[in-house]
Every structure is written in C-alpha cells, then in structure tokens.
C-alpha cells in the first residue's frame, strides 16, 4: 500500500514537471527589453531507486527497490547589467528532498533531518532554499573584481580535485556525481583578475581572498543515503557534537587566499597557482583535555592550514587530433589522522596528535573527438581520459597514517583512472554518456551510464544507472558509499 502511494507520489511529481515544461516550452524571462535584467533557471525532479541493499552501522537496512532519491529542485539565476562595468549576479536554489518517507517502514530514517554535519550554517536535508551565490562584478579597465559569495574554479582536472580546491564540496545529497557546480559550496570571496592588455602570451594574473568564510566538506547525517561514516548513530551524534564544537570560527584568522598566473607560450596554455587555506576534510586526535564534550570519547577535530602550489598545462596535438592537459600540485604539511587515533588506541602516544606530510599529486589527461562511424555516422564520440596520481612524501608513512589510500586506507600513494565517453544522436536530442572511474589502489570506483533525451532545448529526460564498488574496508573516495547502486530518472525543464 505504502509503495503504491509512493509511486503515485513520484508519478504526480514527474507529471507536474512535465506539464509545466510542455506548457511553457521556449519561454525565457528577460525583465526588460534590452536584456539588462534576466531571470533563468530550471525545475528538476531527480528520482532514484536502490539497486543494492545497504545495512547501516546501527543494524537498519535499506533494500533494493527503495527510493534513493526524490529531490525536486528549483534553480533561479538572476543577472543584472547595472552598467557597462558593473554586473550583479545571484543564484538561488531550493529543494524538497525526502526519499525516506516514501520507503517502507523498515529502512532507517535520518536522525537529524535539520542539519548535515559539520558546517557553520549547513542546509537541512529535507527542504531548504539557499541564496547560493550573489556577487558583484566590477570591471575598471583591464581589472575585474568579483565580490561576494561565489564559486571559483581552477585547474584542468574533471571529477577529481587538485587545483579546484577553493570551494569545499557538499557531499550530503548525491556524493560526487552531479555537476560539481551543484555540489561546490559557494564562499564569500573577492576575486581579482588582471588581463595584461595586448599581451602576446594572453597573460593573466588572478588573486583570491577569502577573508573569513571557512566551511568544511559537508557530509550526510546518520541514516541518510550518502552517510559515509559507517558508525552507529549514537556514536555519530557524539562525533558530530564534538566536531561542531571544534569547527574553526568564521574570523579573519581562518581566512584563505592565493593567486594564479596564466599565460600561453606557443600552443601551450600554462598556469601556476598557490593557495593557502585550511583543509576541508578534518583530521582528529585523541585528547583528554578539558574541551572534550563527551568524556567517553575524548578527541578533537582539526582543520589545519596547508599551502598548495602547482601548475597546469594544456596543449593540442594537431597530428593526434587530441587535447592533452595536465596539472600537478604540491601540498605542504597535509595533515593526516594517525592510525592509532583512528583506532582509539590510547596506549599509543601517536594517537594524541595528527601528523603532517607533504604530498605531491599530478593528473595527465586527454580529450579527443573520435569518429566511430559504425556506431554514429553523424557525430564524433568525445573521449576523455585521466590518470590521477597522488603520493604522500616522506618516510615512516605506510601503516601509520590514515591516508585513505590503499586497501587498508594507510598506503602512501593513490592511483585513479577515469574515462568519459559521450556522443549525440538524432540531432542532439539523444545524448548517451558513460563515465567510469576506478581507483586502483583502493579497488573502488563507479560506473555511470545515462541517456538524456532532449525533445526541446528546454526539456530533458535522463535515465541512468550507477554502479559503485569498493573494498570491505570502505577505503578510497567511493568505498564508503559502495552500497548505493542506483537507477535514476531526471526530468528538467529550464526557462
């Protein structure tokens, strides 16, 4: 009975989006006759069904066929061209996301639907509206300032992070799978860009300053679909309280900043960057000091500062008809939780501190449009591959630090490969895409295959399936959520 009701609910939701879309196809909103003020956006329903069973640390389970997502999103994008040199932009996003109440009574409910954790002002899991971005763009001469809450994206890597480190991620509602624009947490920042006029090398200088808006990576609470912690609910509550307590305040001393120089030498587009900020993923150490909220669980969380420096390149090989791109990053003093602290080994002095090691990471990738005529005679296949490699430097690492790398999560290197292939059929109305990512060192990864049908430019239906795998130790990026295989349907009407 419950299931029937749920399906009816989904059907009605989808029907509403469809109806809205068909009624309003090809309408957009320019608020004045000169397009100085524009409003655009979309309404989307994302419905996912579980394809694998998941047992939570507290013993509850979610079964195959249960809803894994039922999220309806309203996305509003407003632009105002105030003058030729001043523009205002704001993006708001509201959602209703509650697959849990649609499922049978046996599966777990989120214990705290009000808040993800951690975060200074986290969104609620069930429904919310967030003015995600609002910033002014002021352009005196060859300078450009973007001031306000915004996303700033650097680097050449897709689906993984190396130079794209300025904004933390919100992994609470769909892990790392949606467009990253949707899961980056915008921050209050000032972005200054100076393009050298008449530069033969397209020289550009950029400086970013985040005065005080520190936000860590956000993850889902216990019982949510994307709860990655793997601990019973009562323990999670204790950790969450402690973490909230330890979270750095939003003050000038917790600010961040950096710079980037971009240019072109011949066919090579190059950039170097440096960014100093607190890490977005916590480390912990055992601590029996007075500030421990739960005496039974004496620990503290930390988000220490790190300095990332790196470089990127991008070059086209005409002979191979391929774009090659790459980036590397050297991180000074990357903090790691010790294995002793992670295991609550009070007997080991190493448990009472975290360790810091330098790390080095690089990515090499290629993008190629390739004809595979027996599969598609009208459009090339876009094939994009990446090799992502990271090392924890220094001796005395393996087995002693929780790097998250390797089968046990304590190795000193990580190797990930990704492959993306897409094409278009029927005049771009049918768009299949496959993305596979595999982390060799943790034997975890995912495979996502979806087909989008766009009968008009404003209406899109996407059907997809996602398989996630990982080892029994739940290490790596996708290991903690390996039981979340999903079949999904998305419907979007944009305006």
């Amino acid at each position, binding site marked *: 009975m419950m299931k029937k009701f749920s399906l009816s609910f989904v059907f009605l939701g989808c029907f509403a989006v469809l109806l809205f879309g068909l009624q309003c196809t090809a309408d957009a909103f320019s608020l004045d006759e*000169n397009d100085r003020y524009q409003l*655009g956006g979309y309404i989307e329903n994302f419905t996912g069904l579980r394809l694998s069973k998941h047992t939570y640390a507290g013993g509850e389970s979610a079964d195959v066929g249960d809803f894994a997502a039922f999220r309806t999103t309203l996305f509003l994008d407003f632009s105002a061209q105030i003058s030729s040199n001043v523009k205002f932009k704001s993006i708001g996003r509201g959602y209703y996301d509650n697959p849990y109440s649609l499922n049978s009574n046996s599966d777990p409910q989120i214990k705290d639907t009000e808040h993800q954790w951690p975060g200074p002002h986290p969104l609620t899991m069930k429904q919310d509206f967030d003015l995600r971005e609002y910033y002014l763009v002021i352009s005196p001469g060859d300078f450009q300032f973007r001031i306000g809450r915004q996303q700033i994206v650097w680097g050449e890597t897709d689906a993984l992070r190396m130079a794209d480190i300025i904004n933390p991620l919100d992994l609470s509602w769909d892990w790392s799978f949606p467009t990253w624009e949707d899961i980056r947490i915008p921050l209050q920042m000032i972005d200054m860009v100076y393009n050298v006029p008449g530069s033969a090398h397209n020289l550009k200088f950029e400086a970013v300053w985040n005065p005080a808006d520190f936000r860590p990576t956000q993850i889902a609470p216990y019982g949510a679909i994307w709860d990655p912690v793997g601990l019973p609910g009562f323990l999670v509550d204790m950790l969450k309280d402690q973490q909230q307590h330890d979270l750095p305040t939003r003050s000038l001393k917790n600010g961040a900043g950096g710079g980037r120089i971009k240019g072109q030498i011949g066919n090579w587009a190059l950039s170097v960057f440096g960014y100093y900020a607190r890490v977005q993923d916590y480390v912990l150490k055992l601590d029996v000091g007075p500030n421990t909220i739960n005496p039974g669980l004496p620990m503290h969380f930390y988000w220490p500062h790190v300095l990332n420096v790196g470089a990127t390149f991008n070059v086209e090989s005409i002979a191979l008809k391929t774009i090659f791109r790459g980036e590397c990053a050297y991180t000074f003093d990357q903090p790691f939780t010790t294995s002793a602290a992670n295991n609550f080994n009070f007997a080991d002095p190493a448990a009472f501190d975290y360790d810091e090691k330098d790390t080095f990471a690089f990515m090499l990738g290629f993008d190629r449009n390739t*004809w595979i005529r027996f599969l598609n005679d009208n459009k090339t296949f876009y094939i994009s591959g990446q090799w992502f490699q990271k090392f924890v430097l220094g001796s005395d690492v393996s087995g002693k630090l929780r790097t998250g790398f390797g089968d046990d999560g304590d190795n000193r290197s990580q190797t990930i490969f990704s492959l993306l292939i897409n094409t278009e059929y029927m005049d771009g109305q049918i768009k299949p895409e496959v993305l596979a990512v595999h982390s060799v060192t943790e034997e975890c990864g995912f495979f996502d295959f979806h087909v989008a049908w766009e009968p008009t430019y404003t209406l899109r239906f996407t059907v997809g399936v996602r398989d996630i795998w990982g080892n029994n130790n739940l290490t790596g990026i996708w290991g903690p959520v390996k039981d979340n295989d999903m079949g999904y349907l998305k419907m979007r009407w944009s305006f």
Partner: protein
Amino acid sequence: MKKGFYALMCLMITAVLSFWGQPVRAGERVPLPGVGWNYPYRDSYRTWKPPKEGYDERMMNQDVIASYGYGAKSVDEIKDLLPESLYTMMKNPSVWGKIRVNVTERKMPKGVLFKRYKEATAKYRGQAKIDAKQWIRNYKAGCPFPDPKSGIEVEWNYRRRFKPDDRIFPVITVITNKRGQVRYQTSDGNLLFMTGRLAADPKPTFLPNPNKIERIDVYANAHPYELQGTISVITQFNDPGKTDELWMYLPSMRRVRHLSTTQRIDKLPGGQDLFWDCFDTFNGNPSLFNFKLLGRKEMLVVMNGYPKGEFILHEYMMGPNDYYQKVNCYVNEIHSKDPNYPFSKIIQYLDPDTWVSYYTDWYDRKGKLQRSSIFNYTLTKNGIVMANVMNHIDFQRVHSTGYAYTNARSGSGGNTYNVGLTPDYFILDHLRKVYPAR
C-alpha cells in the same frame, strides 16, 4: 435575377482561379503564407530590428522583374540559374516548404567602404602571392587577385573578400528537423579581422600581431538557458600549419576548456548542421584542398536581399521569399587532399565584385548532393555587405539550420560594424562580463 447570380458566380470563380493559378505579377513581392519573424523567447531577440547603421533603403521595396517558385512561375524556367541545392528545394515544396525567387536588378554597395576596397585592390595589385603550400603571402588589403586565373586564387579572393573589419552580430538560430520540429538558439557572433582592414584603425593590418592571428570569432549564447553564458572563442591563424583554436567557457563547469577543432566535419553540438569546414559556406584550410576554377556562370543570388530576416515555422529555408539578382559568378570546385574526406567535391559560387560566397554545395562520396550552405546578403546604409540570413541544409536527412540577424542585446552594443574591436575584447574574462555568464 438568376442570370445575374450566375454571372456573379462566374466572375468570382474567374477571379479566384486567376489569383490562384497565375504567377505573381512583376513589380511586387507578394508575401508567402506564414512568413515572419517566428521567434518565441521573451527577450530582446523577439522583434527584428535593423543594424545600427540602418539598411540601404533600396533594399526594401524593390521592383520585382519576375517571380519563380511557390505560387509563381515554374522554377524550371530558371533551373540553369540556380545551384542544384536551391533548385531541388524549390522543385519539392512538399518536402522543403514554400520558396520563391523574386528577381530584381542588382544594386552595388554605396558609401566609402566599397570604394576603399576597390582602391586597395588597385593599390596593392600584383603584390600578393600564393606559396607552395597554397597559402597567401604579402597580402595587404583589397582583392588579392582581381583577375583570377586559378581555383586557388579564387579561393583567396573569397577569403579576402569585401567585409567589415569587425562586427557585433546578434543572431537567432533556427534548427528544423525532418519532422518539422523547430528548436531555437540565440547568440552573438562577434568577430574581428586582422588583415584587409578598411575602416577601423589600425589598418590595413592590425599590428602588433605576434601570434599571426587572421580572425577571432566569439559565439556567446543567450538562449536557451542550458546554453546561456556558454562563450566560444575561435581564433584562426595566418599560418597553414596551425589549426583553429577553440576555447570555451562552460558555465556548468565554471571553467574554460580547450576543445579541438581538428575533426573538421564534426557538427556543432545541439543538432546544428554547421561544422568547422563549412563556416562562412567554406572554411577548410586552403593548404589541405585542391581548387579548380570551373569558370563563370550567370546565377540568381541574393546580394540585395530583403533586410528583415524571415522564415516559415516548420519549414527549412531562411529568407524563403527573398529578392534575387542575376550575377555572373565565379564557380570553384573544391576537393580535399584527404582520401577519407567524406565529401567528393564542393562547388562554391562567388560574387565577382565583393567575393562573398552565395552557395556552396557539398557532394557525398557517391557524388550525390548531401548538404548546402546558402547565404543571402543585403546592404547597410553605409554599404556594408551583411549576410542577413544564412542556411545550412542537409539534403539527405532533410534538416536545416538557419541563422538570421537582429539588432538585439544593447548590452553588447547591438548589431553594428567597424566599431574598433581589438583582440582584448575577446578575452574570456571580458566576455563573461559582457554576457550573462555565471
């Protein structure tokens, strides 16, 4: 009374039949049913507006000598004056829709710019040369080969045709598929030429130009929302060894991506019929093709077109009821040096005075017409030759992509020419400010 009734009936039937069956009389351009500016989005592209320069008023109400095609004289009467592509479309209105050719007298551009082009042609005559790679050298301005003797000289005349130095060019894109389903995009297609400049300083060559840039194009999408803020900057180089460079700002990624243009016949995303080699009707690298001058042929072309872009919803031709003029065109046959190139030959029809291209028909490897680019031009008040509608048509898939300009979006200046753009205008950070990119 009864006789009177019969007489009235006969009169009415005669009147209807004479209107229905007879060709349109000379002197007028009779509207086609359904023709108009059928654009749906609620923005500044919704109404057609002339360019800032204004159009040449001679373009508006021209005296039609004769009309052919839908509801007019048989198209077979002018078969020899049309390329295979346009004749095929007009001959099959049930497939391709209503198209009519209204023949008028040709009018040459007025104003100082065309005069300067001719003066530059005379001034630099004999200086331009074509090297072993079929690339032009020592070109300054004007027509490089006013008396072309070969296909490659005709090709370079086309590439150094009479054109504005730069432009701000808002256009609507109308994509129509086999079922007559229509999709729309809007964008600004702004560009800058670095050589052969006649109006804006520096001229005739933009210096300094250390990277040997030939031209820079930007396509900034406005609608639909999924494409809004997508900005593509394409740089072409005065170097046979360099391919076009494409950098694209993608709002959903919040990042600039470098994309390859080396797959020259890969269609643009979103179902468009346009690919790299057919920009401007033909945009292949001259060093990679062989050119054979077939001679001259009198053709009906649109040089003095009706300025206002028109089209019929669910049909395939932009400018379906335009003014055509007889022009003794140069006809060039183009073959790729690549044996795997999917087109066996390309036939291009060029204006002998301005060297703009009217038609380019593309034939598949079996010699069957596969696609065509059909461009209609009109004149602005100061004599600029502007393509007011452009068609890229796929004959085998019954599919078309049409483009029509309008003076939309005053934020970027609106439709205008020779405004003094520089390469710095095309920096993506600048363009993100001009257009509503997030």
